[in-house]
């Protein structure tokens, strides 16, 4: 996967109105919040709480959308959809994919040089 698939920088700049300072702030905020955001989703998966899964995955999806992190956003959406439809099959697999995609975003941010 190349870096554009993790975060589409052109799209991100468009969303953030080419404000590199704002991009930096949002990156720091994401890396600070990621463990808790993912942990909340993992907890909902663990206890098989569909409503909580919908809520927590939706929230992370929204954040990832603002970061133009398409693949991670799609992984969060899969879990949100599972929660919405109360389809609690294969949740662990979907959660693992989200963790992988999310950590790619964290890694991208850590190595980001404007």
């Amino acid at each position, binding site marked *: 996967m190349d870096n554009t698939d993790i975060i589409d920088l052109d799209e991100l*700049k*468009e*969303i*953030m*109105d*080419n*404000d*590199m*300072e*704002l*991009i*930096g*702030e*949002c990156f720091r*905020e*994401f890396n600070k*919040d990621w463990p808790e955001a993912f942990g909340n989703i993992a907890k909902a998966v663990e206890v098989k709480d569909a409503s909580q899964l919908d*809520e927590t995955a*939706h*929230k992370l*999806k*929204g*954040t990832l*959308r*603002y*970061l*133009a992190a398409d693949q991670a956003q799609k992984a969060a*959406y899969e879990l949100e959809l599972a929660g919405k439809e109360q389809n609690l099959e294969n949740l662990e697999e979907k959660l693992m994919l989200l963790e992988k995609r999310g950590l790619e975003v964290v890694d991208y941010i850590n190595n980001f040089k*404007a």
Partner: protein
Amino acid sequence: MAEQDQKTTEVPRKKHTNISILFVDDDKMAQMLMSKFLKDWNVYCASSGQEALETMEEKTYAVVLLDYQMPGMNGIELLKIIKKKHSMVQVIMITGSDELNTLITSLSEGADDFILKPVKKETLFKVLGNTCDKITRWTGTMKALHKKKQDNQ
């Protein structure tokens, strides 16, 4: 971080920046963006429907930018209450492209406009500009009617 390498979107129609806007979304990143984009406007961010209603009791807002999915009261429930209690307030819904049913419901419940996520500054200013133009026209008409009524007395 490096200096900005491209031109940023200018604030359109400076005359509107005195209009007060309430932004309701529990997403911290969306709040950061909105605070930055609307730094020249009179904007307040609320993280829940309850907080939005409380602040609307204390202060008058002309425009509410409203996210749909929040913990507790959702955007549609909040929209209904706002339209019932503050009918002149313009409500702009913010929804994802995967929430089109929500968008249709919100428009049928009285939402005045919408913006798809992720909210981009150019789109935001365009929609806000149109909404503020509408408010200005209404205010002008109301003042003219009031004056006419007074002149006739």
